[in-house]
């Protein structure tokens, strides 16, 4: 009888624990299911719906939107979106890795402040940062004027409304996000490993490339993800500094959704973009699982050695 009491007691405690878990989880879980998970799936469904001439969604089903997205001139925009995003990511890494390395080498007392210097531009509104670049790159702005006056650039070169401006401004907005994870990884890196590599005959660059870079690969991976994905989905930057030649997939989505009011086609384009973005995310998840596994393995072996 005692055993029975024990079991029911334990079950009551377990049920109580379950109930409080559900109560705590429900608000965010339901909210994000309703306003994040369902809409994300909805995009794929609406891509096959017919458009309502007044700008809504009709009850019928059609393949027209998906077909027009696949056939049309969108392939050019798609290609531009991908190469611009990759270029932005590469530049952010090329700049972010040395900066992360440099900050990690500084006296710990100043690191926080240096990091703050990197973060502060993020505190400025996203649109205002773009606007600042428009002011800076403006044909009558002081940068072009002084460069032309100094004879560095010819008079017929314009900085604004081209693909170059899109890349520069996207790098500008993404760079802090690349530096932060790289710095976080570099800070944990044991710099005496570089001396060990030098001791074993590696050149400075070789030690940097073969010891430091693999040592901070998690940071590089995170940086890649946090730059590449927003870049693939960028809308405001190409819209404001890119001109006609700088349009990206995000602009097409926004144009279909607002100017043309063809929501199924916008949905088809968005579904297209989701699929493109899933690729790096899946890669990241695979990698992260491996990382989680290695952490678990490390902890287990550490636990064994203490016993």
């Amino acid at each position, binding site marked *: 009888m005692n055993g029975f009491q024990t079991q029911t007691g334990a079950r009551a405690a377990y049920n109580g624990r379950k109930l409080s878990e559900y109560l*705590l989880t429900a608000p965010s879980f339901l909210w994000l299911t309703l*306003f994040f998970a369902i809409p994300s799936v909805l995009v794929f469904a609406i891509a096959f719906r017919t458009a309502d001439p007044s700008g809504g969604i009709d009850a019928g089903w059609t393949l027209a939107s998906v077909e027009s997205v696949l056939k049309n001139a969108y392939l050019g925009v798609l290609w531009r979106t991908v190469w611009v995003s990759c270029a932005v990511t590469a530049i952010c890494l090329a700049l972010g890795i040395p900066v992360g390395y440099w900050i990690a080498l500084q006296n710990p007392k100043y690191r926080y402040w240096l990091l703050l210097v990197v973060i502060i531009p993020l505190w400025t509104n996203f649109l205002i940062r773009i606007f600042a670049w428009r002011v800076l790159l403006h044909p009558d702005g002081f940068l072009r004027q002084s460069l032309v006056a100094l004879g560095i650039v010819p008079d017929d070169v314009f900085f604004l409304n081209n693909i170059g401006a899109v890349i520069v401004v996207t790098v500008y907005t993404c760079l802090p996000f690349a530096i932060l994870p790289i710095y976080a990884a570099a800070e944990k890196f044991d710099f005496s490993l570089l001396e060990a590599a030098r001791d074993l005959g590696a050149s400075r660059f070789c030690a940097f490339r073969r010891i430091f870079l693999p040592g901070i690969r998690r940071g590089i991976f995170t940086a890649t993800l946090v730059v590449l994905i927003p870049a693939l989905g960028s809308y405001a930057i190409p819209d404001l500094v890119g001109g006609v030649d700088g349009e990206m997939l995000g602009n097409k989505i926004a144009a279909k959704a607002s100017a043309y009011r063809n929501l199924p086609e916008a949905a088809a384009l968005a579904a297209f973009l*989701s699929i493109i973005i899933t690729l790096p995310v899946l890669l990241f998840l695979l990698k992260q699982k491996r990382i989680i596994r290695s952490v678990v393995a490390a902890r287990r072996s550490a636990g064994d050695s203490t016993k």
Partner: protein
Amino acid sequence: MRTRYTSLIVALFVMAFMYLPIVTLIAQSFNASRYGGRWMGFSLKWYEALFRDSAVINATVNTLAIACAATIFSTILGTCAAWALNKYRRSKLQSVHYALVYAPLIVPDVLMGISLLLLFVSMKVQLGMLTVIIAHITFCVSFVTFTVLARLQDFDFNILNAAQDLGAGNFRIFAKILLPLLGPGIAAGAMMAFTLSMDDFVVTFFVGGPGSTTLPVKVYSMMKHGAPAIINALSVVFMALTFTVAIIGQFCTKRKF
């Protein structure tokens, strides 16, 4: 070390790159000239024009109202979520929950905007303040959750046992231990939500309707349709506003016990 010099040079270049546009912008806002490369004398006329513009004032009120609403709700949702994620770490439900909270962080704004727009349109919800607030809560929840979660993971739950061991009841534990120790973390999450909401343009642009124009949307339309000189001044005011919130947020996270 040569790599050190290379990295120093890159670092200096990056710092210059980060600050050049902002400094130019601030300088321009006090320049009497519209765009001019030349300095036409110090002037506050753009600021005067700004404060006379009722649409800007209206947008500011909207921005603050939306940010406040989004902050309150996302802080409640995010704090509960963080607590659940931390306390029931090993449960299956929480690994799904974690994925659900994590995913919005890596979805680009454009996708979040269009998918919410599609949801609202298919549910026949009128676009306006309400839809903007819902959208803002949605992307703020994840950030609040992870900010609070980081704080909870550092928190030594043993001290709750210690307080109980020393005779404290639930209320005393909450007032004397939980609130002073976790309050700053939750406040930091709230500040983050507030800044994110104030900063957002893309999602608002998609799900907003008449009457829900926020400052970023206003700045965008001003940029698209003339009036650039006022934006200089508006930007500086806006910058000062975000800086204040961000500095308070920074203060909350930096304060260690």
